[in-house]
Every structure is written in C-alpha cells, then in structure tokens.
C-alpha cells in the first residue's frame, strides 16, 4: 500500500538535514521510540512502542537511510516486527527549501501484515499522517530549542560496541502529543514512524 504526504519545518534545509541524520535527535523525536542502535552508517536497529486503536505492542526492526543526496532527499528502508504485526516499507523523502523553511515530502510503499494489517487498516492512513506531523513537529522543536531537558538522551555502548541511544522513560514527546490512546503512537516498526508513514490502506480497500 502507498501513502504520501508532506510537512513543513520552520528551519533551513541544512539544519533539518543534519537533525534527521542525528540519532540523538531521532530517538528523541520519533514517537514511541525507546531505543535506537547504530548498526552502520545511517543504519539503525530500533525498538518502538506504538499502537493503532486497541492494537498496541512493541516492535523491533531496522531502519537504513540510503541514497543520500544532501539537502535534497534520501531513501529509507524500514523493517519491523512485533506481536501485533509486521511492516516492510520503502520511503522516499525529499527536502525542499521554501523561503527559509523546509518542506519534507514522503512517499511510502509499505506492506503491513499481521493483526495490524487486517484490523487496524482503516486507521492507518490517518494515524500515520498524524504521526508524521508529530515527528516533524518534534524535529522542529529540537532544532528550535535543542534536545528537551525533560528527555535527556542517553548514549551508551552496546555489547557489540555500537552506540545505543535510549530515550529516558516517558521521554517520548509522542506520548505527550498523542495524549489520547488512539494517537499515542503508531505503529509499526519504528521507521515508519520516521517518515510518518505507516501506511495506510484505506486507499486500497475497495479495489
């Protein structure tokens, strides 16, 4: 299923680009992101806690940013799996300067499987759009004010020696933004979240 959308961040492209490639920013801004582990250049293993309607759970997965064209765009490959379902997505993200602010467009092609694929479908489009908006809003906040004090990002080193970024408990701005249970997070495999995606399905429903 495909989903696309765009969000604007009140900061110059260069700054947004830098923020989005910074794992400390990512872990603090991805709604529901509990842990982000660098597994290579621009490659992460992540743990995200999210829910669509009544279907909640923790997803672990990977997110790889590739085909980086500085200040222009990148491709994100996401994979996640948890008890409520699975996600496999390719997201094209483009950056565009719009008079000093940055317009980010995303174009996702995703397969959502498991319970969330069958039961949460009607919600996915709207939930993913709100998640995307929330994420970009968080990024905007970090750029403007720095990393939130209430949510210190802890960096440590994994057993394998790779850096691990953990969000402190309750750090997720997502939880605050998505106060109601419906919003509190979405979805599927963390990365999706990154692009906001999570991919909706309603589009494809009545073929």
């Amino acid at each position, binding site marked *: 299923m495909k989903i696309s959308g765009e969000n604007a961040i009140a900061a110059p492209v260069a700054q947004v680009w830098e923020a989005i490639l910074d794992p400390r920013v990512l872990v603090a801004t991805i709604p529901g992101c509990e842990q982000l582990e660098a597994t290579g250049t621009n490659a992460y293993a992540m743990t995200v806690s999210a829910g669509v309607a009544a279907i909640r759970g923790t997803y672990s997965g990977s997110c790889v940013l590739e085909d980086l064209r500085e200040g222009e765009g990148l491709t994100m490959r996401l994979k996640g799996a948890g008890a409520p379902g699975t996600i496999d997505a390719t997201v094209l993200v483009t950056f565009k300067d719009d008079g000093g602010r940055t317009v980010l467009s995303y174009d996702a092609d995703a397969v959502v499987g498991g319970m969330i694929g069958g039961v949460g*479908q009607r919600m996915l489009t709207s939930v993913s759009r709100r998640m995307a908006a929330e994420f970009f809003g968080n990024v905007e906040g970090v750029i403007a004010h720095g990393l939130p004090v209430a949510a210190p990002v802890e960096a440590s080193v994994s057993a394998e020696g790779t850096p691990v970024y953990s969000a402190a408990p309750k750090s997720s701005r997502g939880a605050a933004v998505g106060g109601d249970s419906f919003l509190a997070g979405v979805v599927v495999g963390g990365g999706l979240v990154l692009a906001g995606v999570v991919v909706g399905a309603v589009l494809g429903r009545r073929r």
Partner: protein
Amino acid sequence: MSAKLVGAKVQRVEDDRFVRGNGRYVDDVAPDALHAAVLRSPHAHARILSIDVDAVLDLDGVHAVWTHEDLEGAMAEPLPLLIPHPTLTHGRTQYALAKDEVNHVGEAIAFVVATDRYVAEDALARIVVDYELLPAVVGIEAARAADLLVHEDVPGNVAATTEQSNGDAPAAIAAAPHRLALDLQIERSACMPMEGRGVVARWDPDQGRLQVWSSTQTSTGVRAAVAAKLGLDLGQVDVITPDVGGGFGVKIVHPWPEELLVPLAAQRLGRAVKFTEDRREHFISSAHERAQVHHVEVGFDDDGRVLGLDVRFWHDHGAYTPYGLIVPIITSTQLLGPYKPGAYRVRFDSLYTNTVIVTPYRGAGRPQGCFVMERTMDAIAAELGMDRAEVRAANFIQPDEFPYDHGLIFQDGRELEYDSGDYPAMLEKIKELVDWDGFPAFREQQAALGKRVGLGLACYVEGTGVGPYEGAHVHIETSGKVKVATGLTTQGQGHQTAFAQIVADELGVRFEDVEITTGDTRRMPYAVGTFASRAAVMSGSAIHLAAKRTKEKALRIAADALEADVEDLEIVDGVVSVKGTESSIPLGTIAVLSNPLRYAFDEASKAATQFNVGDPDKPPVAEDDEPGLEGKDFYSPPRSTFASGMHAVIVETDVDTAEIRILKYAVVHDCGHLINPMIVEGQIHGGVAQGVGGALYERMAYDESGQLLNASFMDFLMPYVTEVPTSIEIDHLETPSPLNPLGIKGAGEAGVIPGSAAFAAAIEDAERAVSPTFGITAMPISPSELFALRAAHVPHAQEPK
C-alpha cells in the same frame, strides 16, 4: 388417531435453550482445560528461515510449544486431500504446522498450550520467526498470468483443468441465428458463523481412549482424521458435536490443524486441552469461497432458445486444495439450472493464490453458476427485445421430461439427472407472487414520483441430499421414551424437531417422547455429515426407515402379547391396541417383553408379567432375533435429488446516492414434501439474508500483498436485520422426490443461491429505464460501484436531475 406431524408447523424444541442462552457449545465443555493458541503467518508468501521459541520455554504457565519439528509420523505429513479427482493433477495441502514455507496470511506456524489463552497469546508474542518474503499471488488475474507462482512445483498456478460437455456447443453456437459473449465475475466471501471453530480433547489414560468435542459439520470425519493422524484405532476415538453456532459449509473441512494438535496435546500432556478461535482467526485461517471469473459464449434462436452454451471459468481456491474441486464442479453442472441448452460445454481452471483456502459456503458454487446463467438469460432477452420470463420459459425442462439426464457428471460422481420438478408452474407462481405483469405500471407510477425501480428474476436448481449414506438407530426405552441417534451433525437446522416429527408419525408415539441425538460417534459411528442440503433427505429417510423397523418389531411382539393379528393393530400415543377393542399394551411394556430378563425393575416390567410372549419350547430370543426394542437402518440413494426455486426482487436505486433499497422479495420454493414448513421458511429467510449479503455487501478485501484488510466485523459488511427485506413472500410447490421414502428434497442452501443473480437483474432493470446500455457483470455491487457504473454508462447521470 393423532394428526400427522410431518407437514405441520411444529415449534422448534431447540429454540427454548438457544434463546435463553442455555445452548451447550464446545467452548462450554471442560472449563478446566488448558488453552491452545496458534502463531499464524503475518505474510501471504514467505520462506521460514528459522523459528526461535527459546523465550517461551521458561514462561510460567506454558505447558507446550511446538513447531513442525516437534511433530512426528503422520502428524508431520501434509494434511489429507479429502476429495481427490482425476483432473486434480496438482493438489496440495498444508501441514498441521508450516514446514519451510507459508502460503497465506494466517497459516499455522507454531502451537502453544498454556494455562489460559492470555498466557498462550503472550507466549506466541515471544516466538521469533525469521522470514524470507516471497511475492504473493493475489486474485484470479494474477494467478492466471502466472508471472509468479504460489507453489514452485505447480506450473501456471493451475491445480486442475476440468472439462465436461454434452453435444457440440461450439458448433451449435456457430450455427445459431444469434450469438452473445459475456464476461461475468463474483467476488470472494466467507461463511461467518457466530460460533467460530473450536475443539476440546481429553485423553483417558486408564482406558486408552481419546474424547474429542469439535464444532464441526462431520463428527465421523473428524474421528477418522484424528485416528489416522494420531495412529489410534477408530474404536479409541469418540467425537462429540454438541450445539454448534452455525456452520454454513466452513466446518465441513476435517481435520483443521487445531483438530489434530489439540488431541495430540491432550494425549501428550495428559490434560484436557481446548482451542477456541477468535474472529480474526476465522477470517484468516478457516476458509472462504465464491471468487470466480467466467466467460460465456451462447448461441440462440429467435424465440430465445439456447442452442449452444460454452462456458469457460477460473476458480480461485486459495493456497491449498483440501476439499478438492467440489465448488467449481458444482458451478459447472448446476449452472444449467432449470434449462436444457441444445449443447453445453464447460471448462474450468482451479487456481492457486496466496489467500485462505476455499471450501463450500452455503450455496457452494451455485450462486456463481446461477449468476452466470441468469445474466445470460437476461442478455438474450435484451438482445431479442423479449420478456425475460418468456425467454426462461422457452428454455425450461418440461414436467413430462423427468427424470432429465443432462449427460454430465455431478459432484458426487453420479449422473446429473434431475428426479422431478415443475418449472413452468413455478414460473407462474413467482410471476403472480411478485406481480410480474403489473410491474410496468408500478415502474411508471414510481417514475412519475422521480423514483427508479427495477425487477429481477432468477431461477435455480439445486442438487441436494448427496450420498453416500446416513444411518439411524431408534430405541424404545421401557419408559416408552424413544431415543433416536443419527450420525450427522446439527448446526441450527432444527433436526431435533424435524426428525422427531418423522419418528412420532411413523411410530405413533408422542412428539415430546422422542429425543434426537446427532453427531455423537458413540451413538452412531457410521455417518457422513451435514452439508449439501442433505440432512433431511439422508438422515430423515434413514430415521424413517429405522423407525419403521422398530415399529415392525413392536407390532410383532404386541401381536403375540395381545393374541391378535398385526394387521389389526394400531399405535396411538405410544400405546398399541387392537383396533376397535379395549385390548392394548404400551410400547414401554413391549420394550420389556423384547428383552426377556429375569427381573422387574420398574412399572413397565411389572406390567409385562401379565403378558406371555413366545413359544415356551423355543429359546427366549429366537435365532433370527435380538433382544431390545430397537431398529437400525441406513439410507443410500442412487443419486442426488434436485430441489428448485425462483426468486424475484424489486429494488429502488436512489437517483442521487445510488443506494439500493429492497422493496419486495418473493420466493417460490420446491423441496418436495415439507417436513416442517416453519423450519423450511426459516431456512429460506436465512438464505435470502445471506443472498442479500452476497449481492450487496460481502467481499474479502485483499491487498496486493495478500493481507486481508477487512478481517473484522467492523470492516466486513454483513446484512443485519435492517438490511434484509422486512417481508419475504414465500410460496411452495411440492413435487415429491421419487428417490426417497418421504419424497423430500433439501432446503438448507436454497435461499442464498439466486441472490446475486436476482439483484443484478433488478438493479440493471432499474438503471436501464434511463440508460439502455447499462449492464452489471460483477457482483457484489455497492452504492459507490453503482454510482461509478452509472457514470461510465451515462456521463450526465451525475448531473443534477
């Protein structure tokens, strides 16, 4: 003499407990049982690289966790292909737990047994499966294209290509004065019984016996499957089917993986184990039906008579073929309905897709066949400018042509030979019931009010009561109560009422003294099952025959005891008497006399002492006799009996919103003699409701990756009582079947069969009044699809009127 009960509207005795919530279902059995849950594939097509269950092993409350590696012997082999067919050259079935590969979302991968379902599901969440995703084949188009394969070793995704013909259809079409070609399709749907699948098993180590309760349509089938897979003798396995909350076909498959895994777990763990599926599991791991694409070529004369009919169709059977080719074979034969084309050829491909398997769903291939044939009839009428009913009448098999042999082979491997029917009389009845001739005036009147209405008609013939056999055992207790057992199961058809009516009439006992047991292999180990509208015909006949045998024995003993001639005896309200005299003996007393014990246990035994039975010089039980007042018999017909019916519906299609409203629904139905008209009418009501669902609402929304997007009752639309016509007008025709002693035919599926055909015709009729080229070729149809169709045919339809 009591009035005959067969043919009377006797209130269903089972409703009291159903309505009060006192039904006893599989999930009510063994409340202390351990609970099983199944890890199901989230992917439509994937290779399983590894399964890691380590995190589950030490979980508190988990008693077992199995993957395919834990299965042995026959359990590790694929599940049985229940109905092989010579043309099913590439049949494939799944494993109880997936081995190496999964082929649809929902396929069973791992099995956990825990103290309760919560723990079991938590355990499932900890199992880590590594998949290599494979592209999914979804839908008939993708399956036919065969760019991707479901099973690597099945070329073209084709499990079977089957052809039947009678005469040279292509030549007849080529020579016909008129020709038409149509492409028609029906979507996927599924049975949605209120109670999903469920199974409970208990192993008795002292007796070495397994007891299984299953929500199934065939307890003997489950028994045979469990015994074979677990390496037990049939005599070690009892299968009991308690109350079942609906079947509609989906519960005919046996065994489901869970029906084997639960008994195996009970045996290995020495504890009762239970599996109760949830609704999502029903959507993604039971069975669906209906998806077919058809191409029709037809040649006909100036009167609309079909000279040649050539049908090619493609059937989507999902990922595996456990139930063989039954559904497409039924479509290919039952498509003919009440008509006799000059020549007929039908060919179908049964195709694999990465979706849930297909098994018969009430109607079983007939709704598709009926849709194809009736759309063709309507197309012929339109082409010739004839009345739609007249075209049908021109093609009917006539009453004096029975038995009518179509020259084809039916789903049971027997000739497609109709036993009886009267289609012209039925057409007259339906025309009258729906006021066919008055409709043009009604349309005009509605048009004047700015409303758009249409009338549709659809006719069908349904082969019911397929063999091979059913049996019954009738036992009269010394209390006079009559205990009857038949092996097939009950899913709400009112068997306890209808069968008791048959027994009461034949034996001359009070209806309330008859108790019917179904689906318990301890009581009747020889049985087939409840499907194909066969229970009344098969078990009804067997019960009638068994009651007759019991009566013969009762009268023989009574004649002896009363010193009278059998011809002079009658049985009324359970008492045998010599006609016109005071001399009598209750059946309970005869039961005592039939079993010459030494002891008097009860009143009946005491009463028996006043009678002397038998010759004092001979053994108490004669050589050719048995003790006990019992009778057992089996009924096995030469072939199916063919019920028929016609439905007519009047709809209004909203001029602006394209909403489809049902104004009138009329049914004429012929299932031979009626045992209980109230039950038959209830079956028709339920069938019509399901027909409305199939025509206007139900579909399986798969996305291109094989995810079922509407796997819940929030998203899968079914008609509620608000969507079903408030009144369904029913008229019966009774052409008795010559094939069974009661002259009956099946009635269970009938109501659903012509739904899509009748609605397509009615909606098309409504729209053609304003848009002559409008046509419906695919069902179901939603208001938005109707809206889009309007736009495609008359672009100005969207403009304000």
